[in-house]
């Protein structure tokens, strides 16, 4: 389900991405490596760092929290469950909790600056952060100089999209 609106798409594109599997992993540092092996994905330790392998992605959100993306969840949950006894953790599927927007185009940093108090321009490519857009908690992934993904809690999305529509119109007006 990709929706694309407006004709000034070169400057700004806002697309809703099709759902994929999303999991929240919580594990103590001493068991991190075990989980990483089970998930087949390095788990970075610096908050905001990301890794990717075989279509899977991990973003470190907190000292014991990782957001895991994958095409499908069951293989990951099964692999993790298999080592639960020696590496206790929580791996909770939240695929439906958020909806992911892809935000791209030359004006994308201006769009983000309408709602994010944090300096998103300072977020390095290939990193991510959980932050706030207006009053909604969001997770932002920077994929390129003008390419971002934003995970928005499902019920907050109408508000976020309404705000983005105002910003889009404003950016199109050119002032």
């Amino acid at each position: 389900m990709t929706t694309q609106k407006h004709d000034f798409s070169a400057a700004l594109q806002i697309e809703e991405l099709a759902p994929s599997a999303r999991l929240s992993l919580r594990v103590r540092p001493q068991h991190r490596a075990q989980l990483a092996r089970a998930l087949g994905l390095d788990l970075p330790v610096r908050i905001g760092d990301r890794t990717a392998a075989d279509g899977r992605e991990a973003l470190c959100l907190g000292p014991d929290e990782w957001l895991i993306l994958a095409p499908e969840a069951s293989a990951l949950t099964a692999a993790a469950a298999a080592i639960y006894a020696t590496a206790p953790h929580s791996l909770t599927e939240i695929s439906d909790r958020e909806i992911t927007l892809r935000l791209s185009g030359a004006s994308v940093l201006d769009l983000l600056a309408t709602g994010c108090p944090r300096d998103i321009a300072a977020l390095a490519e290939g990193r991510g952060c959980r932050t706030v857009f207006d009053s909604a908690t969001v997770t932002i992934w920077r994929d390129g100089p003008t390419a971002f993904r934003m995970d928005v809690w499902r019920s907050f999305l109408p508000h976020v999209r309404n705000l983005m529509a105002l910003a889009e119109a404003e950016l199109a007006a050119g002032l």
Partner: protein
Amino acid sequence: MSRYRIAGRGRVDHGAPISFTFDGKTYPGLRGDTVASALLANGVHLMGRSFKYHRPRGAVTAGSEEPNALIGTSRGPGRFEPNTRATVQELRKGLVTESQNKWPRLSFDIGAINDRAYMLFSAGFYYKTFMWPKSFWDKVYEPFIRSAAGLGKSPTEADPDRYAARYLHTDLLIVGGGAAGIAAALVAAKSGARVVLVDENPELGGALLSDPGVTVEGQPAWAWLDASLAELRAHGVRLMTRTTAIGYYHQNFVGLCERLTDHLDTPPANAPRERMWRVRADQVVLAQGALEKPLVFDGNDRPGVMLAGAAQTYLNRYGVRVGDNPAVLTSHDSAWYAAFDLADAGSRIAAIIDTRSEIRADLLDAARQRGIRVLQGHTATGTKGRLRIASVRVNPLRGGTVGAGREIACDALLMSGGWTPSLHLFSHTKGSLAWDADSNTFLPDRKTEACQIAGAGRGLWGYAPVLADGVAAGLAAVAALSRSAGARQFAVANDRPGSGVSHTELPTDRSPGKAKAFVDFQNDVTAKDLRLAVREGMRSIEHVKRYTTNGMATDQGKMSNINGLMIAADALAKAPPQVGLTTFRPPYTPTSFGAFAGYLRGQTFQLTRKTPIDPWAEAQGAVFEPVAQWRRAWYFPKPGEDMHAAVARECLATRASVGIFDASTLGKIEVAGPDAVEFMNRMYTNPWTKLAPGRCRYGLLLGEDGFIRDDGVIGRLANDLFHVTTTTGGAARVLNMMEDYLQTEWPDLNVWLTSTTEQWATVALNGPNALAVLKPLVEGLDWDDFPHMSVAECTVAGLPARLFRLSFTGEVGFEVNVPARHGLALWTALMDAGKPHDICPYGTETMHVLRAEKGYIIVGQDTDGTVTPQDAGLDWAIGKAKPDFVGKRSLSRPDIVAGGRKQLVGLLTEDGSRLEEGAQIVLDPNQPLPMKMVGHVTSSYDSASLGHPIAMAVIEGGHDRMGEVVHVPMPDGVKRARITSTVFYDPSGDRLKA
């Protein structure tokens, strides 16, 4: 060509005429004009009436500090704005403007009677006059004051414009695009730092725009400006004009209001009118310059009396002579240059009247060369002219005495009482000020923020020192950013250095008590008012300010504060620094509500959360209500139904057959890990150890103070896994509280919390036919092992589901959770399956009625943060054998075990009427006033199932008062109500077992 416009002069576009209207009359103007400059070009000085005395007034400044020339502007329906400064509003095609505070017209105003009654309207007038009799206040005094007061007209329509907001992060923010700011930017730009330079004016350049004769680095000022700005642009400096720094907050957080469209003939579609920038800068340079002070003398507010610097600006920036034969009255050198520029442009200077007896020789020479009469050591003691100054009365000062006066005819009077640094933003930071006795002004002293102050803003005068100071500030900022940049020197020729002296009121030979010598033009405060305030006992400058309203107008005393202080200090016989300055507060200039609101209006006023089933409810015509941040379907009216009828129908249908309810907003938290059960035991009052996987239980959460915080049904999915539900409004709070305990009190526990509120869409089915509707859709569930209060993972309508069997209605009930993307599909499937049973969608109101009929509490409605489990009749939910849980210790606190606590009970009125929620309750309606209130109604509904209203209430000692009658005052009389159990419907609970 307008009468006072000089062809080709100034920065206005002489090839681009624009007409506009003022009070219905059309005037010609030029692109680049302000309303004030265009009116002055047409010889119009009278631009408004003052606030209190309705005195005729003209523009006294050429900038945002203007106190007098406030106008209404409009651009079609809904786009009327009062109190716009004519000195700031740029001309645009079709601009319609009007003067204010006048009736019936600007040149003849009834309200000016106040002016003749000047002696009556002194400081504190309102406080004294309207004190007595008390009964007169509501009916006489207040209506009179309200009708007479007010600054301009409020718009009556909603503002159709858009407003925007943006965050901006930068290394260096420079406020003020004059010589100092530009110099700072020029050096900082080369350091590689991100630099933002903002100015409230349409053009950068500051005072240099009004001093084209100055030469910088061998170039005329304006050529140097062009080159410098081009250099800044080339280095990527962000230059922002029409952008006012309105407030300076902690840690270099600066609010900027950018005006985007008010100057445009036709704004682009969807363009915001203004944008609020929230800037975070590592370093700030304040280069805001200085504001010229008026002189305080009788008649100093007559139209045509204006600041000398303003006249110089009108001449050099707008090509407008403010008069044919202006006089100049000054105590500072700067006004002499204004006189010279005007003389050179063809005005005949009536005289330069300087209060000082010693004048710089070069100034005297320059005046002599131009044939200007100079009166040294003179004071001004009055002006004449009805709607425009016609003459000024001047007197020689000899040895402290005022000599005989004489009239000097003039059509404008250009005054200068010297300059005061613009300290507003610096003061916002609580930076301290130091009194400079030489210049008789406050200068910035100790800083609290990472900022530099440069140029005239810290008392420097003349372009050479100001430019050098800007360089120094830029270098200091760059060094503080751990960067480096080369120093620069700017050679200045034809500079305009200056100094002056400061005065209280100018000396006069007339009775000072009769002088209308204005200090605060906008609030009509005179020197006499200030002295009266001191005589009447005001000692603090803050009291003097409030008693007289000096400095309290929309210009925040930009022109009046220092003069007011000097006069108050003189009256108090204290030195000015001992009296001190009142506090400047944001915003620096009046700022529209729209700019503060930004995007947060209308549909985006507030975050509104919607469930996956919301589109269905909307299509069905549901009426919504806000619950926490959510909008929830309140009830589903059928054609012709009001709320009462719809809710009654929904309640009856659910109890008779089956109702369906969107419960997706319930908070959900996944509690997972080996220590999950231990964690649950510690958090919730209930015992969890023996709850088998596959079963669920009502959970009660207390604060450590023993009061109920939240509740919800909690399912144990596996030994190590709980599915916790919370109230809709409590979801975030409960998770926060749990995380708090987990992270900071019990970090040793191996358990983790994940919010799954939005992972699941939740649909509740309730009623005797709920099972019949659901059962055919369920696969993978052993119904033989699924009694009331069970939970299982299965599929419903082919969707992966967590199915709860529980009831918040007293009927057989289920809550089906499916991944949120499938929520609508689940709802539709259940609606289809329920058709044979006349399934009835119901909203939150019916949910409330059904639960109240069963006495189930709503946390936050029947509890208010002071209700214990015992108070609410929930002792049964406490695991008494548990050694500890959050709040347990508080349940034995003296205040909690004491008798007489308010306890939750049912109430039934004797006359069958419905009580108001929140109504107070008394035991004896005949007791003397004030009556002792023993509680209040917490929930009250019409119960269609029971055929009469029901209510719940908290009443002192309520559990021991069963059957007693209490009294509830209602709008239509005191109601008698009998205390009952809270369980009104099916008290035996048989329906759940069906």
